[in-house]
C-alpha cells in the first residue's frame, strides 16, 4: 500500500481521486462557494509557484503579481485578437510568463535576498502602469477575457461559475501533480542543494545560476497560469487587478502554507479566500460604528498573519511533522 502511494501511478490516482471529489463537491454547494472554489484553485496555483521559488529554490519574490499580470494579459490578448481556444490561451499565458521569468530570472540569479526582493517589488509597482502606455492593453479599464459558456452537453443548469470552477480546479490539479514530479526529479534535488549551500553545490558540479534561473522560469510559468485563471474568474484584466497587495497576499499565503512544503498549499489558499469573509462577518456582528467595520477586517487579517509567523513560522504542516518526529523519536528511546 505504502509503495503504491509513492509510485508515480499511485500519485496520479491520488490526484484523480481528488479531482472526482471536487467534481462531486461542485454539485453540492451553492454558487457563491463554487465561485470561491475557482478563486481558491487560482490561489493554489499562484501560491505553489511561490513555494517552488522561495521554499525550494530559496529566492524571494515580492512581485509575483506582475507575473500574474503578464499571464492574464497574454491570455486575454490571445483570446481577443487570435480567437484562440481557451486551453491555448492558458498555454500562451504560461509560455509568455515563463519567458518573462527567464529574462528576469537571469538577472535574479545574480542577486541575493533583499536585492531580489527590491527588484521584484519595483517590478510589481512599475509593470501595471505600462497598460496605459499602449492602446492594445486597454488602459485603466483593461480588456475583456471571456472563456465562453460551458458546453451545452453539461446541461442547462450548469452555471458559468461552475464552469470556471472546473477549469481552475483541473488546472490546479495538473499543476500540482506536475510540480510534484518535477520536485522529485533531478531538478528538484539540484534546487534544494543550491538552496542548502550554494558554494557546496557549485563544488559538486551544479551550475547554481542556471539552476536558479530554471526555478524562476518554471515559477513564472505557473504564475502566468494563475494570472490567466484570475482573469477568467473576473472575466477581465486591468492594471488595478494586480496591485502590490496581491503580491503581498500571495507571499502571505505561501507562509501560511509553509514555504518548504507543497502539502499545505490548500491552507494558504483557503485562508486568503475565507479570512476576509470571516473578518467581515465578525466586524459586522460586533461593530457599532462605521470606523470599526471599516478597519477591523484588515486588522484581524494582519493580526492572524503576525501570530502565524510568530507561532508556526514554518507553517502548520511542517509544525505537525516536527511534532510527530519528536513523538516518534521519544517513543524509540
Amino acid at each position, binding site marked *: 500500500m505504502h509503495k503504491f502511494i509513492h509510485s508515480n501511478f499511485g500519485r496520479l490516482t491520488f490526484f484523480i481521486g481528488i479531482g472526482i471529489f471536487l467534481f462531486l463537491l461542485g454539485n453540492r454547494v451553492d454558487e457563491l462557494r463554487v465561485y470561491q472554489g475557482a478563486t481558491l484553485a487560482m490561489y493554489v496555483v499562484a501560491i505553489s509557484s511561490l513555494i517552488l521559488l*522561495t*521554499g*525550494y529554490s*530559496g529566492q*524571494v519574490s*515580492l512581485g509575483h503579481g506582475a507575473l500574474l499580470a503578464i499571464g492574464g494579459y497574454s491570455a486575454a490578448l490571445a483570446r481577443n485578437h487570435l480567437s484562440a481556444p481557451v486551453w491555448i490561451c492558458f498555454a500562451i499565458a504560461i509560455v509568455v510568463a515563463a519567458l518573462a521569468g527567464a529574462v528576469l530570472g537571469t*538577472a535574479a540569479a*545574480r*542577486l*541575493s*535576498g*533583499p*536585492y531580489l*526582493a*527590491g*527588484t521584484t*517589488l*519595483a*517590478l510589481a*509597482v*512599475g*509593470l*501595471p*502602469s*505600462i497598460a*496605459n*502606455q499602449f492602446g492594445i492593453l486597454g488602459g485603466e479599464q483593461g480588456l475583456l477575457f471571456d472563456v465562453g459558456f460551458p458546453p451545452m452537453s453539461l446541461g442547462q443548469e450548469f452555471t458559468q461559475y461552475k464552469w470556471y470552477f472546473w477549469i481552475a480546479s483541473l488546472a490546479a490539479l495538473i499543476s500540482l501533480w506536475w510540480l510534484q514530479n518535477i520536485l522529485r526529479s533531478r531538478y528538484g534535488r539540484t534546487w534544494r542543494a543550491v*538552496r542548502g*549551500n*550554494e*558554494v*557546496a553545490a557549485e563544488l559538486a558540479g551544479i551550475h547554481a545560476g542556471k539552476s536558479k534561473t530554471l526555478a524562476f522560469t518554471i515559477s513564472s510559468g505557473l504564475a502566468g497560469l494563475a494570472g490567466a485563471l484570475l482573469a477568467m474568474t473576473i472575466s477581465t484584466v486591468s492594471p488595478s487587478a494586480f496591485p*502590490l497587495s496581491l503580491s*503581498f497576499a500571495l*507571499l*502571505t499565503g*505561501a*507562509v501560511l502554507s509553509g*514555504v*518548504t512544503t507543497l502539502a499545505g498549499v490548500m491552507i494558504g489558499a483557503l485562508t486568503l479566500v475565507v479570512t476576509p469573509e470571516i473578518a467581515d462577518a465578525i466586524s459586522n456582528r460586533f461593530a457599532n460604528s462605521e*470606523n*470599526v467595520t*471599516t*478597519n*477591523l477586517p*484588515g*486588522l484581524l*487579517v*494582519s*493580526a492572524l*498573519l*503576525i501570530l502565524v*509567523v*510568530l*507561532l508556526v*513560522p*514554518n507553517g502548520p504542516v511542517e509544525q505537525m511533522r516536527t511534532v510527530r518526529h519528536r513523538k516518534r523519536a521519544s517513543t524509540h528511546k
Partner: protein
Amino acid sequence: MYQFINTVLIGITSGAIYSLMAIALVLVWRSTRVVNFAQAGQALVSTYIGYAVIQSFHSFWLALLIAMLAGAVVSALVDALFMRTLFKRAAQGPIAGVAPIIATLGLLGLIRGVLGLVVGNKDMSIRPPVSNIGYTISGHTLAFSPLKLLIVSSVLFLMLILSLVFQHSNVGLALRASAYAPEIARLAGVRVDGIRTFGWALAGAAGAAAGMLQTPDGNAGLSPDSLEFSLLLVFGFIAAVIGGLESLIGAVVGGLLLGLVLAFVLTYISGSLVFITAFVVLIVVLLVRPNGLIGTRRVRRA
C-alpha cells in the same frame, strides 16, 4: 536653462526625502538583516504624534523632536517585543528569508488598522515650519525653498552624525558584528540584543523625520491609508537597494540618483513613466553592480 536647473533641484530635493527613508531601512538592515516594511507604519505613528504636539504646543520643532523620540521608542519596542521572538523561531531555512518580510508587512497592516480605529480614515495636514515659497533669482522662481533646504540639510546632518557615531565609537562595529555573527559577537562581550534594538531605535527616529518633513512638503494629507507613506516606503526601499543596503552614504547616493533620474525622465520624456522608470533604474544598477552602488562585495551567504 532654468528648466534644467530646476529639474536638478527637484531631483535633489525629492531624492533627499527618499534618502531619509532609505537611511531608516539601511539602519535596520545593518543591525538585524531585515527589510522593515513596517517602517512606513512606524513613520505614520510618529507623524501622528508630531501632529498632536503641533495641535497642543504650536511648535513644529518641538513636534519634530518628540516625533523622532517617539519613533525611536516605537521602533525599539517593535524589535524587543516582536522581532526578537521571530528570530528565535524562524532562524533557519528558507523561511528565514521571508518571515521578517511577512511579519513586518503584517505589522504595517496592524498599525494602519489601529490608527484607523483611533483617528479615523480622514485627512489631516501639517503646515510647513519655514516658508515653502521658492527662492527667486533674476525673476525666475527656483524649485528650491527654505523648506527644501531644511529637508536636504536634515538628510546630510543625519548622515554625517550617524557616520561619525559609527566610525568613532564601538557602536558601529558592535552593530555590524551583531548582525553578521551574533554568536561570535556575544562571545566577544557585545550585548547583541541591546545593540540590535539600538539600531532599530535610530531607524525609527530617521523614519519619523522622513514622515514629519514629507507631510508639510507634499501638499498631501496625513491619513492611515496614506498613499504618500506607502510610496515613500517603496521609493525609499528602491533607493536603499540602489545604494547597496549596507551603507548610509549609499542610501543618500541611491536616493539622489533615483530622484534625479525621475525628475529628468518626467520633465524631458513623459510624465507617465514614474513607476516604470524606478524599476528600470534599479535593474540597470543591479545588473552592473549586483550588490548596489556602494554595497560591500562579499561572498554570498553560503
